[in-house]
């Protein structure tokens, strides 16, 4: 792998940037691999990388329907945080946040990781009690959460001029999560892909998987693709909102529902907010990107959807709520809006497990799953390589539903 550094930048500048190596190869598709991963999103690529890096399994193909990093990994609002509710979740996300913080060095790719505080703006006492309850559990696992006053909220977010005593829903305080951050989503996809490629992993774009193939004894045997069948003893489904479309071809039923979540960005402006602002009572959140755009997200569409768009009334609700608290944003022009479909389980926690089909693994139910990419990839790779679940993800089993052992995280993400 060509090392990216100041020196390599200078050297390539001299030759007009014409001699940069391709970040990954495009080899012909083989008929057989040790492991096939379906989906070149964050989770698929990270799993491939850690399989090669940590477990020496390099005969791996990542099969992608569209282009690498064109799914939700490139459609999300890049909020990385560990303020979850349950004992099983928090350590997993703490690990993921810390892996993100070291990822630029590890992958020799600039993640533009920007550690920044997240502030929850709170408008009612039940919510405050709920967040304080989260804090008690987070304290145990070394994730920070702290209650702050209304004055402190306004100090941290000077643009927050609404929500005063006379308003319909006055602010009563806030919670501060100092471990949060944002980074560059393309870099996450490209960085993992490039590093995995350097270790021998193959990336195949425009290679949609159409079915799962099973041997006579029921084990997984490989996948059918638009370019023909590919054999593998182990197959990982990492297709985000499309999980059930793949698993149903093996007659497997999973407790998942697919929904569309949306976001939009403003024109770039001068630095106005240096924290991640989360107003879940009103139903929106935002942060400011390095380019100066405000990156804004709201609530998901109410009904199931496999369509990536934004509904006018969802957009209006989000903007209307935001202007209640940030009236000066009225002057902003909004540049782009988009959606992405994600799948979610009954308890809003992910499923990372081998399924009832031996050799078939799924990593699914990723609602706020961008933050989970490093730990998700690492622990999935562990499971695939060793045939036993990693301690950090053991609880996110498929069988927990059979015992109704929910890890309820409903309400700790944008899904409400």
């Amino acid at each position, binding site marked *: 792998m060509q090392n990216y550094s100041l020196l390599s930048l200078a050297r390539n500048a001299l030759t007009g940037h014409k001699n940069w190596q391709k970040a990954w190869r495009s080899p012909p598709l083989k008929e057989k691999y040790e492991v096939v991963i379906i989906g070149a999103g964050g989770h698929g690529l990270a799993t491939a990388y850690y399989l090669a890096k940590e477990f020496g399994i390099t005969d791996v193909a990542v099969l992608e329907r569209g282009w690498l990093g064109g799914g939700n990994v490139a459609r999300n609002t890049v909020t990385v945080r560990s303020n979850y509710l349950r004992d099983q979740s928090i350590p997993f996300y703490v690990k993921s946040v810390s892996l993100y913080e070291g990822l630029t060095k590890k992958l020799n790719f600039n993640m533009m990781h920007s550690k920044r505080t997240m502030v929850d703006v709170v408008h009612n006492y039940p919510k405050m009690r709920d967040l304080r309850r989260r804090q008690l559990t987070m304290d145990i696992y070394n994730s920070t959460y702290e209650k702050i006053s209304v004055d402190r909220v306004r100090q941290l977010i000077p643009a927050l001029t609404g929500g005063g005593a006379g308003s319909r829903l006055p602010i009563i305080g806030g919670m501060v999560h100092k471990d949060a951050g944002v980074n560059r989503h393309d870099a996450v996809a490209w960085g993992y892909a490039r590093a995995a490629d350097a270790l021998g992993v193959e990336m195949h774009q425009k290679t949609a998987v159409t079915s799962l193939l099973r041997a006579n004894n029921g084990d997984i045997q490989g996948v059918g693709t638009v370019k023909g069948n590919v054999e593998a003893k182990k197959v990982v489904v990492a297709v985000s909102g*499309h999980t*059930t479309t793949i698993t149903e071809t093996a007659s497997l039923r999973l407790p998942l529902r*697919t929904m569309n979540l949306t976001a939009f960005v403003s024109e770039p402006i001068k630095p106005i907010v240096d924290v991640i602002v989360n107003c879940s009572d009103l139903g929106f959140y935002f942060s400011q990107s390095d380019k100066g755009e405000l990156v804004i997200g709201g609530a998901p569409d109410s009904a199931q*959807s*496999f369509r990536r768009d934004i509904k006018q*009334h969802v957009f209006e609700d989000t903007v209307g709520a935001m202007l209640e608290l940030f009236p000066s944003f009225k002057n902003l022009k909004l540049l782009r809006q988009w959606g992405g479909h994600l799948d979610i389980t009954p308890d809003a926690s992910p499923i990372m497990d081998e399924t009832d089909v031996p050799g078939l693994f799924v990593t699914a139910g990723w609602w706020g799953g961008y933050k989970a990419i490093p730990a998700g990839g690492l622990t999935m790779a562990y499971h695939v390589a060793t045939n036993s679940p990693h301690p950090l993800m053991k609880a996110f089993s498929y069988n927990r*539903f059979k015992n*109704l052992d929910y890890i309820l995280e409903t309400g700790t993400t944008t899904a409400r």
Partner: protein
Amino acid sequence: MLLIHCPFCKNRNETEFVYGGPVGANRPDPNLVSDEEWVDYLTMVPNPMGPVYERWWHARGCDKWFIICRDTVTHEILENPSEEP
């Protein structure tokens, strides 16, 4: 935005309705079914990429519950309401 056909009010804006989820199995009596069937009822919903039957409630209108068939990709409403039995 969907234009949803309420059996009573006819075509109305989606914003007047509350989504009630996909139509799954009817609620069984937990004392009469196996644990597997009970868990299935609690956790499984249809998730097709295509037509799905789902419940809607005209909460900001006539208060009726009804079922439509909607395509989850095109969002086209393929079958207009049958009233909740």
